[in-house]
């Protein structure tokens, strides 16, 4: 509508229109407005700790301790080299990735049918149960460290990957159910029925028709599971000692005879951020919906 009305007007005064536009553009370029300043400040505060970590990871220990420098004077990759060549370092990453993957897969596989039940069926106590799911997330993990430690020690699960993965499902399954239910509710029930009428059995319908429809929801739920499991330190450290020791535990325990190895720790920190950043990149388009738990 608006372009229809403006078109004849613009044609009648062509000089006016063409002159006004570049003028406005140059003015905008040279006078930063409020939102630009806010944006720059925001990025500055956001990136500063990450930059400083990166900065440290590329310096030698001597330089880190010698004084203030905004960028590395003697650029070195020795810190990274150490992490990637020393098994006691890189196995931390491997262990973390193993139990995080196990946990994510486990959580999603368990949460999918649960969320489907909550979104499609009415059963006794369904609303209360749905809310109670979240109460698990209200307790700090420290509460569960002791019972898990004792339980897993006595059944011989201590210091295994599956121990950490199982411990984390306590927090991740409720969250995944909550997120997935929101996405599933957005799919009309008639699609289920049409599939049954067409002859699909339930498992076939669920995998071939339903899951593609909530693929973004599954992605978001998996992301949240991944993120929680990846950053969670307390349980993973309590439940492991050597064989399944996660990188976060390795980092916080590394104090050598000569004191803290600042450069290597910083490099480990950078490498720890990377997987999270990678995953966020893949789900960035759905993340807002995920934070709204699918209830947009």
């Amino acid at each position, binding site marked *: 509508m608006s372009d229809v009305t403006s078109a004849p007007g613009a044609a009648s005064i062509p000089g006016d229109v063409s002159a006004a536009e570049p003028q406005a553009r140059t003015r905008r370029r040279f006078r930063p407005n409020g939102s630009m300043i806010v944006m720059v400040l925001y990025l500055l505060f956001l990136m500063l700790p990450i930059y400083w970590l990166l900065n440290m990871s590329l310096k030698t220990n001597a330089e880190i301790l010698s004084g203030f420098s905004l960028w590395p004077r003697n650029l070195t990759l020795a810190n990274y080299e150490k992490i990637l060549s020393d098994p006691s370092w890189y196995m931390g990453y491997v262990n973390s990735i193993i139990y995080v993957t196990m946990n994510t897969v486990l959580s999603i596989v368990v949460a999918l049918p649960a969320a489907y039940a909550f979104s499609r069926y009415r059963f006794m106590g369904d609303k209360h149960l749905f809310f109670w799911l979240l109460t698990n997330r209200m307790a700090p993990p420290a509460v569960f460290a002791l019972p898990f430690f004792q339980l897993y020690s006595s059944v011989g699960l201590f210091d295994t990957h599956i121990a950490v993965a199982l411990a984390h499902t306590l927090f991740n399954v409720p969250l995944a159910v909550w997120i997935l239910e929101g996405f599933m509710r957005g799919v009309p029930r008639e*699609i289920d029925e049409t599939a049954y009428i067409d002859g699909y059995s339930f498992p076939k319908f669920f995998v071939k028709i339903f899951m593609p429809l909530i693929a973004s929801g599954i992605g978001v739920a998996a992301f949240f599971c991944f993120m929680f499991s990846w950053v969670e330190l307390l349980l993973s450290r309590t439940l492991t000692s050597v064989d399944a020791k996660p990188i976060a535990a390795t980092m916080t325990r590394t104090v050598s005879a000569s004191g803290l190895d600042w450069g290597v720790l910083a490099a480990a920190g950078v490498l720890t951020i990377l997987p999270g950043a990678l995953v966020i990149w893949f789900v960035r388009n759905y993340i807002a919906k995920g934070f709204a738990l699918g209830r947009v």
Partner: protein
Amino acid sequence: MTLTLEGVSKRVEGQTHIHRTDLTLQNGTMNVLLGPTLSGKTSLMRLMAGLDAPTTGRILWNGEDVTGVRVQDRKVAMVYQQFINYPSMTVYDNIASPMRISGKSKSEIDAAVRKSAEMMKLTPFLDRKPLELSGGQQQRCALARALVKDAGLVLLDEPLANLDYKLREELRAEIPKIFEEAGSIFVYATTEPEEALLLGGHVATLWEGRVTQFGETPQVYRHPVDATTARVFSDPPMNFLPFEKRGGSLHLDGGREVPAAGALGALRDGRYMGGFRPNHMELERSGAGDIAFETRLAVTEITGSETFVHLDHHGTRWVGLIHGVRNLRPGQALTAYLDPAHVYVFAEDGPLVAPAAYVEAA
């Protein structure tokens, strides 16, 4: 093939959605379920499809009890009012999906899909996803899927309600033709009496979970068994006029007395309910026998070539459908004329006593 409902009813949480219903639908017929929203059309269809189990009664398919049979194992197809397709599949895969599940050969599937796509004018869109299509095309995709399934029972739940006027007319003309050759039992739910008449076949009128009448569409239209059926099968709804027959005259509300002419004269003395359709109300006297009513105009609606007049007659609201555009002011006094030959007579509690005389003459 027949579909028989035997004493079928449905109660959900203490509320009766469908009262005891007996219905037999014959092979190769178009059966229209006509009723206002919440009258139970969809509930009845879900029972027929097997999506819901009836609380009481049995559902027979060719005389065989299929009451507890899973919907997957019944030969039914259903199209919803909402455009329901599988969004993650292409139109081709959507149409092909019921045949793929039943394990037909690739060439067989391809032939059937292309044939029904051609029929539904979907051939250029076979590679697209349903959500990239217009509403009418999406619904045609759903119809095509119902068509290829070669189901014995095809349920169409207000398939055209969400479409715009032009498309609706176009598809409404196509649907009976398409399904005629398929030879299945068709059940078509609609809220519009006009649609039921255009589709032909049989009609079952529904009111508050009860099938009030089932029969051939023109027959039901001309001979409604009771006032409820007549109200459902008239759009705008039928107008009602209570009167008392005493001797040779009719006593109307407000103390008026008119001579009982024609068929009305043959009624036994007593209180009745007269009913007439909006299109039988006139604003000019057309015959000597017409009864005149002094009314007040409440609202007029002009549709372009016709005028709806909402009249107030002693506190009762009547609707008239008048040909041509009239320039009328709300609030003005208006004389409405009614030919007694167009009046259906119902007993006070509903059942039809005498159909309108014009129906008998036809």
